[in-house]
């Protein structure tokens, strides 16, 4: 019963995290959301195996420990990346048009040089 609550809570947090990760514009918010998700994950990892045979299992705890290390390093790295991005473009959001060339055709402009030959009906 308690484990069910934990699972539900974890799921809720995870959902919040996902939403934040995807929808927030600011990278900082995204990273916070990411950490939220990680917390939910760790919670789940601890809770779910335990609920199987009643007593704590060392393995998931070891896993979570490792996970936390990874989470910390990932977050740190992402923050560093964010800072560099911020320095480059003056704001800490992901540039919506990553590749202007990809969207070059959006305006109906023909970019390929072979266009003349190719389009002849």
């Amino acid at each position, binding site marked *: 019963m308690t484990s069910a609550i934990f699972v539900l809570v974890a799921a809720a947090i995870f959902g919040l995290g996902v939403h934040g990760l*995807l929808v927030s514009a600011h990278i900082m918010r995204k990273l916070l959301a990411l950490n939220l998700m990680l917390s939910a994950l760790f919670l789940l990892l601890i809770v779910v195996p335990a609920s199987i045979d009643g007593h704590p299992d060392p393995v998931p705890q070891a896993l979570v420990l490792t996970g936390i290390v990874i989470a910390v390093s990932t977050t740190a790295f992402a923050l560093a990346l964010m800072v560099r991005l911020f320095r480059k473009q003056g704001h800490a959001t992901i540039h919506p048009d990553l590749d202007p060339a*990809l969207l070059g055709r*959006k305006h109906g402009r023909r970019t390929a040089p072979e266009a003349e030959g190719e*389009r002849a*009906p």
Partner: protein
Amino acid sequence: MSALAVNLLPVLAPLVAAALLAFRGTPRALAMTVAPWLPPLLALPLLLGNSEEVAGLPFVLLDLRLGADPVAAPLTVLCAVAWGLAGWFAATRVHRDRVLFWSGWLVSLAGISLALLAQDVAGFYAGYATLSLASWLLIIHARSDEAWRAGRVYLVMALLGEMAAFAGIAAIVSQAGNVALSELAGSIDLGSGWSWLILAGFGVKMGIVPLHLWLPLAHPVAPVPASAILSGVIVKAGLLGWLRLVPPGSDGADTVGPVLLLLGIGTAFAGVLLGLAQRRIKVVLAYSTISQMGLVLSVYAAMLMAPERAAALLPWLGVMVLHHGLNKASLFLACGCAPGRSRLRGLLVAIPALAISAAPLTTGMLAKTGLKAAFHDAGLAQGWTLVLSLTSTATALLLWHFWRLVRTERGYKTAHPAWLAMVLAGLVVPWAWAVGHGLELHLAAGLWPATWPLAIAALVVGLKSALMPGWTLGLPAGDLVVWLERFFGAANMRVARVAEASLGSLPNLYPVHVRMTRALLWTERKITSLPVAGFLILALGGLLWLVTLLF
């Protein structure tokens, strides 16, 4: 000289000369000097060769065999004499486009030589096809609109004919391979369909009605010596084709005999009737040739109907061939010599004309004797002989028409000795041939049958000028051609349209391509945005999970 050399020389010499024409300067001049005198080379195989001996060239074409045999002999003689004399005429009278003329002349000569001498099917066909195509050059020599039209009609018909013949030949070859011509009779079953194809194919060259359409167009436009050989010699290559490929005695050939006989007689009359409606002398002569070829056809038909007598009739056929060839050639040569200018020239026109009308004691009478012999041998009723005599009447009428037209030809052209020689040859050679082959001439018995048809003709002429002096027929030269041209012109357009619309290539997918491109770029733009991407990840996971749940 070896048999091979003797047989090859007439074929190769013109080809070498034709090749020399390509080199400007001396070689070309040399070729033109030599060219007129090459046809007599054809006499070599006849004179020097043994008629039984066949010279083989196993590597050439499909095992080429050459030799002079009795079937081709009359035409060989005709070719040597008439083509040679016409060449003499041409040597001095053809001034325009000489390279074109002589190349056509020489290649045609090589072709007919090969056709005459070849003793295997492929060799014969090779010669014949060369002849057909090369004589086109002679027809279009003038390059006037008329010449082009005649050339076109000729080419279409010649090719059609050749292909029909080719189909028949294919039937032969499919059974026996490239068989020797001498082994053809009796060894091949030419179910009537195939023999008809061969007959029709070569019939085009002969100008048998209704395959004659090219003839009245082509003969008038060709230069005079070319018309002479076209009408005198080349048309008879068709006869050679019949004799070679559907020899009397072939299985299935006897069934076609009677039909051919009717066709022959029909052609004889139709040629005359159509010719009477013409106003140009060379056209009239062309129709006369058609009519005469009808007679030749009827002899051939008789040979088919009496295969056992065929060998005996062959010399008679030779007489006919020589008689018509030489006389018709001299009439054509006459067209180039202002025949209306003097009495002597009138006489030189009248002799061959009378001969062709089968006047008494002429070679024509001799030929008619042969015809009657043939009809007799074929077991035909007496009525046929009467019909035969009536063809003489008809021919006489046509030549009377010709005579009247000829009298108006009074240009300033000089007479040419070759003309005279041709007329003389027409007088002498057939007789010599007949005597040489020991034919029974029946001179006395033939006099009256030769005379009365002419009398009737004279009567008709008299009546006509008395009763309706101004009345003339008028038909375009080549009669049916005009309608056919119109019909095929329209059909050609239709075929072209069908061809154009038919399955040119795969359909153009351009619009689909554009739409797909746009859709794809739009999608890619959409799913590159992070929220959509994340949603996709979750959705895909959800979908996969759903699938596992359901199944």
